[in-house]
Structure formats: structure tokens, C-alpha cells
């Protein structure tokens, strides 16, 4: 796991532990260096002390040319196992005695060198004069193997360093575990609060202030922002409620207006139709043959306008009537809709295909109207096709809504105008080709949106069209109060 994705607690602990290890290593290194030089000095001092003792004891042996005695003195060096070679030279510089008895040639210099001990690779060796009463009787040579001592010392140091490091790591771990909470706990609390807020959208929650440090200020800023969000949210909701009420009021007025207009238009229209009819039926003296033709046109137009007004009234009623929600069997609705169109379809060759349709919750009468409108559309626009194919089914895929479609192989439409399809009085075909008022699809949209669903369509000119409507699976009531209440 990369460090930036590690939890903050572990990050803090890692930082503390890494710092202590580095500091410890640096200290250990410095101490080691110091010890190394101290150790060398001590070794040098000890060897020259030992040399002094040997030299002092060798004076008589050298003075009285007693090699055996000299050898015995040197052989006592075996008590110090790191001394690998020793030798005594007489006054004239000749080798007088050596230790140990057998030595590889070249181990001991043939003639004494300059006084003093020097470190060379892995050993400390040197010469020391043997003096009695101020005059030199000979020279002592000593060679100390420092390699082994050094190795033992280094190994000892490493062991101690490891032990100390283990102890320090344990202590640092325990300390960091409790100390890191000073920093991580407030951050974690803040993070937890933020998470709870984003999950529950409850902006009234406030984070607890840990103290007066940066985290305290961060918490303050966080709480302040929460306060602002809460205020803004409340204001927004308030505004939405106000606007919705305004819109509903305007809508109500508009609907009342259009209802009364439609209603009031019907009476004069009936008169126009009625009197035009009477005029047509009257004898020839009153109206000429040509005039009779005009009058027939007037009567037809008045009738058409009557149909329009009826549809408008139905549309407006659809928006105002109360919904009766219950389980609806869509299969039955489809069957009823097809049945209602028998007059239209009995002269036609139409292949009906109905797929699986799930049961839904909704207003049965309204949904029936949806199917009637969509199927009527399909029947209408497939008139040039023989046979016409009309398919009703359900599209799978979405989990939270049921999408039902009505597909035909009719004349279709240009997708550029798809946005206008569901508007009132919006028609994509001329009335001479396909009759209609342009209210059917508007009605469909209105019903479906009152159910909380959507409507859309797909088509290619000449290749048929598919109309979709969806219904939510768990139906949430929308802002309907403006529409469900009857007009005042």
C-alpha cells in the first residue's frame, strides 16, 4: 500500500518510528566511531604497557645472554592470546629470542626498527627498547593481532546496537501509539463527522472542537461552512416551496381559464353548427347551390372545432382529476385498448405482438388512456402498411423503473422534431395525411409524469417509431397537491 493511501494513524506512527530509528542509527554511528578510536588508543596503551613489563623483565636475560630465560619470559605472552608474535633483539640488533617457538619466516623483522607501535592491516606491532639503568641492552618486538579483537568488538557492538534498537523500537512504538492519538484522533473525528454528514445529509451536525490549535481552527472553519450550507439549504428549500406554490397557483388559474374558455366556446359553436345545418336543409330560394357548399364547410369546421374543444377539455380534466392508485394489470389494459379500436382496425391487416408486461402501481383509467392514445397513434400511422406490425412490450434493464414501449412499422418521424412530439397541438404530419388534434401525446406525457415517470420516442422516417413511457417501481408522490385538488 503506498504511503499516501495509508491511514493517518499508521502514517504518524511510521514517521515517529522512522525518525527514532534514524536518530538512533546516527547516534550509534557517532558512538561507534568514538568507541573505535578510543578502542585503538586503549589497545595501543595496553600493548605498550605490556611491552614495558616484558622489557623490564628481559633485562637480565639480555645482560647475561640467557636465551632460555628470555624465551620463558616471552612464552608467558600466551596468556594474552591476541599476541601472535614477540621477539627480543640483543644490543647489536641480532635476534635473541622469539615467541612462539615456531614462526613462519618473515613474521618477525630480521632487525629492530624504529621505536613505537603502529597499526597496520589487522595488527598492531612495534619495537620498544630494553633498558637497564639508562643503557639499552636490546629491543623488544611485539605484534598484536587486532583483527579478531576488532571483529569480536564489532560483533559485540552490533549485538548491543540491535538489542538497544529493539528496546527503543518497542518504547517508540508504545509511545507513538499513544502520542499519535493527540493528532490523529481529532482528524479522525472530523473525518467521521464529515462522512456522517455526506451520508445522511444532516447539516445540523457539528464537529467537536479538540483545542485551540490548527485542528481546532480547522474544526471551526468546518463547522462554519456547515452552518452556511445549512442556512443556504434552508433558504433554497424555502424558495422552492414558495416558487412551487406560485407555479401551482398560476397553473391553476391557467387551467381554470382554459376550461372556462373551452366550455364557453362550445355554446356559440353549437349555435353556428346548428344554424348552418338548418340553412343547408332550407329550400333553394334562401341559399344558392354554391352557398350550400360553403355552409357545409362551415358546419364541418364547426364540428371539427367542437372535437378540438372536447379534447382540450379532456386534457385539462386529466390534469385536474384525482389519481386512484392501485395495482394495475397492463396486459388487461392493452387488451382493452386494442378492443376499443375494433372499429378502426377491422378493415386492416394488423399483426399484434404483445410481450411480457409486469404489474404496476397506478391509476387504472389514466394508464388505460395512455395505451389507447399510443396504440391509436400506431394504428393511425401504419395505415400505409400491409401488414402493419404493432408490438407492445417492456424493456428490461433499469432497476428502479418499468419502461413500456409501443413499436410500429409506420411512417415514423424525423428525430429532429422528437422534442415537440409530446406538446399540445404539436403535429409532425399534415392533417390531410393523418387526422388528429395534437393532444393525444400531450395527454400521455401528462399522465405518465403524474405517475412520476418519463416519456420519449425513437424513430427514423419511413422505418416506424417506438414510443416509450416509464413508471417508477417504488412510486414516489410528486408535488401533486396543486393538481389533485379540484379547482376552487
Amino acid at each position, binding site marked *: 500500500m503506498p504511503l499516501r493511501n495509508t491511514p493517518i494513524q499508521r502514517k504518524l506512527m511510521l514517521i515517529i518510528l522512522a525518525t527514532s530509528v534514524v536518530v538512533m542509527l546516527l547516534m550509534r554511528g557517532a558512538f561507534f566511531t568514538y568507541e573505535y578510536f578510543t578502542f585503538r588508543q586503549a*589497545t595501543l596503551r595496553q600493548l605498550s604497557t605490556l611491552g614495558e*613489563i616484558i622489557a623490564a*623483565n628481559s633485562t637480565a636475560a639480555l645482560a*647475561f645472554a640467557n636465551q632460555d630465560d628470555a624465551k620463558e619470559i616471552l612464552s608467558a605472552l600466551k*596468556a594474552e592470546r*591476541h599476541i601472535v608474535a614477540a621477539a627480543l633483539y640483543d644490543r647489536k640488533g641480532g635476534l635473541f629470542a622469539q615467541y612462539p617457538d615456531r614462526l613462519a619466516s618473515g613474521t618477525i623483522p630480521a632487525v629492530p626498527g624504529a621505536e613505537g607501535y603502529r597499526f597496520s592491516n589487522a595488527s598492531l606491532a612495534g619495537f620498544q627498547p630494553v633498558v*637497564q639503568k639508562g643503557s639499552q641492552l636490546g629491543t623488544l618486538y611485539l605484534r598484536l593481532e587486532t583483527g579478531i579483537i576488532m571483529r569480536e568488538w564489532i560483533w559485540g557492538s552490533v549485538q548491543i546496537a540491535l538489542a538497544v534498537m529493539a528496546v527503543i523500537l518497542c518504547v517508540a512504538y508504545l509511545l507513538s501509539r499513544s502520542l499519535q492519538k493527540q493528532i490523529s484522533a481529532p482528524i479522525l473525528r472530523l473525518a467521521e463527522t464529515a462522512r456522517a454528514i455526506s451520508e445522511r445529509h444532516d447539516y445540523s451536525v457539528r464537529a467537536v472542537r479538540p483545542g485551540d490549535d490548527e485542528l481546532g481552527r480547522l474544526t471551526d472553519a468546518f463547522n462554519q461552512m456547515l452552518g452556511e450550507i445549512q442556512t443556504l439549504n434552508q433558504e433554497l428549500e424555502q424558495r422552492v416551496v414558495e416558487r412551487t406554490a406560485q407555479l401551482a397557483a398560476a397553473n391553476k388559474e391557467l387551467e381554470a381559464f382554459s376550461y372556462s374558455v373551452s366550455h364557453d366556446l362550445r355554446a356559440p359553436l353549437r349555435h353556428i353548427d346548428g344554424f348552418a345545418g338548418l340553412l343547408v336543409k332550407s329550400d333553394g330560394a334562401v341559399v344558392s347551390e354554391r352557398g350550400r357548399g360553403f355552409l357545409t364547410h362551415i358546419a364541418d369546421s364547426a364540428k371539427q372545432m367542437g372535437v378540438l374543444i372536447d379534447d382540450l377539455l379532456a386534457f385539462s380534466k386529466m390534469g385536474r382529476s384525482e389519481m386512484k392508485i392501485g395495482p394495475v394489470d397492463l396486459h388487461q389494459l392493452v387488451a382493452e385498448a386494442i378492443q376499443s379500436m375494433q372499429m378502426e382496425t377491422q378493415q386492416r391487416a394488423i399483426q399484434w405482438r404483445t410481450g411480457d408486461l409486469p404489474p404496476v402501481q397506478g391509476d387504472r383509467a389514466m394508464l388505460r388512456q395512455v395505451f389507447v392514445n399510443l396504440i391509436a397513434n400506431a394504428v393511425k400511422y401504419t395505415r400505409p402498411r400491409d401488414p402493419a406490425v404493432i408490438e407492445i412490450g417492456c424493456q428490461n434493464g433499469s432497476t428502479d423503473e418499468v419502461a413500456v414501449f409501443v413499436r410500429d412499422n409506420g411512417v415514423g418521424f424525423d428525430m429532429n422534431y422528437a422534442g415537440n412530439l409530446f406538446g399540445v397541438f404539436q403535429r409532425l404530419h399534415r392533417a390531410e395525411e393523418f387526422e388528429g388534434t395534437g393532444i393525444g401525446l400531450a395527454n400521455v406525457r401528462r399522465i405518465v409524469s403524474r405517475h412520476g415517470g418519463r416519456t420519449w420516442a425513437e424513430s427514423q422516417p419511413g422505418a416506424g417509431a417506438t414510443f416509450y413511457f416509464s413508471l417508477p417501481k417504488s412510486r414516489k408522490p410528486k408535488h401533486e397537491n396543486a393538481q389533485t385538488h379540484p379547482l376552487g
Partner: protein
Amino acid sequence: MAILATRLRFLDGGRTWLAVILAWGVFAPVAPAQTAATGEYELKAVFLFNFARFVEWPAAAFPGPEAPLVIGVLGDDPFGPLLDEIVRGEKIGSHPLLVRRYRRIEEIGDCHILFIGAAAAGWLGRLPESTAGRSILTVSDADSRAVRGVMIRFLTAKNKIKLRINLEAAKAASLTFSSKLLRPAEIVPDGES
């Protein structure tokens, strides 16, 4: 700490070693001296000179701080010029070295080391009385039966020169022998030397 342990071990070794050395100083066996290729008398001459380094004379033995330390040879001199060559220019402390030869025992005056060669063994009988009360280190290589009261004897055995020391005689003459001198020597009671 590791370094401390090593140091202690090191010192320990030194101490053991020192103990061994000291033990030898007290119980040293007769160590055979060696005659090198050099002549026997050259070696003996060097030894005579070296005795001056391992023996302390009482202050009264010297008339002044710069008075010479005299090595005397009684009777016929077996060393020839060897002894003079060895001591030439040498000093023990502030005392220069001087060689004197005595033909008769009565001639011995200020003398610190007296060598009585085998040829002068005849004088040995009179030696104790003539050196009594004087701090003279007497050295001889004469035959043992004739020697009495001589402090150091050279014994030649197996081509090596050994030292035999009569400490009581030395003590009687107020001479202090360095313990180091005793290391390579054999110590005998008075009358046996």
C-alpha cells in the same frame, strides 16, 4: 559494553602474565647461560660490566657523586684489552667506569667489582678478611673447593656460563642485588659457593 569487556580481558591477561613473571623472579631455577661464538672471556667481561647495572652499592662506597665505579682484576688478567674496550665511555648513573688491575690483594683500594680469576685463586683464602666491611662485589670463575665468600661465581657447563650467587655474602657487604639478576642465576647458601 563490548569494548569494556575486551579491555578487562586484555588487562586480565596482563595481570596473569605479571603474576607468572613475579613467580619466576622468586623461584627461578638455574638458567643455563650461554657462550656464544664470542670467546668465553669476552662474555665474562660483558657480564662483569652488566653486574654494575643490577647491583646497588651503598652511597658510602663512592667518595663523590662523580667518582668512578671501579672494576678490579686480581692477579693475572685473562681479559687482555677486552674489558677496557667494553667499559670505555660507559657510565652507570653519574659514575664513569674504570678498570684497575691488582697484582696483590693488598693493592685493592677503591674497588666495586673484583674479579678473581682461576689464576689468582691463591688469593681467595685471604679474600674475606681483606674485603671485610667494604662493599666489594666479588666475582670468580675459580674452582668451587677453593672459593669461600665469593658472591658471584661463573660456572662453565655444556659450553654455557651459569651464575651462582651467594646472597648472604652480598648482604654482609651491604650490596643490594636486583631481583632481575637473580632470575637467570642459582642461589646458594653461604659456604657452598
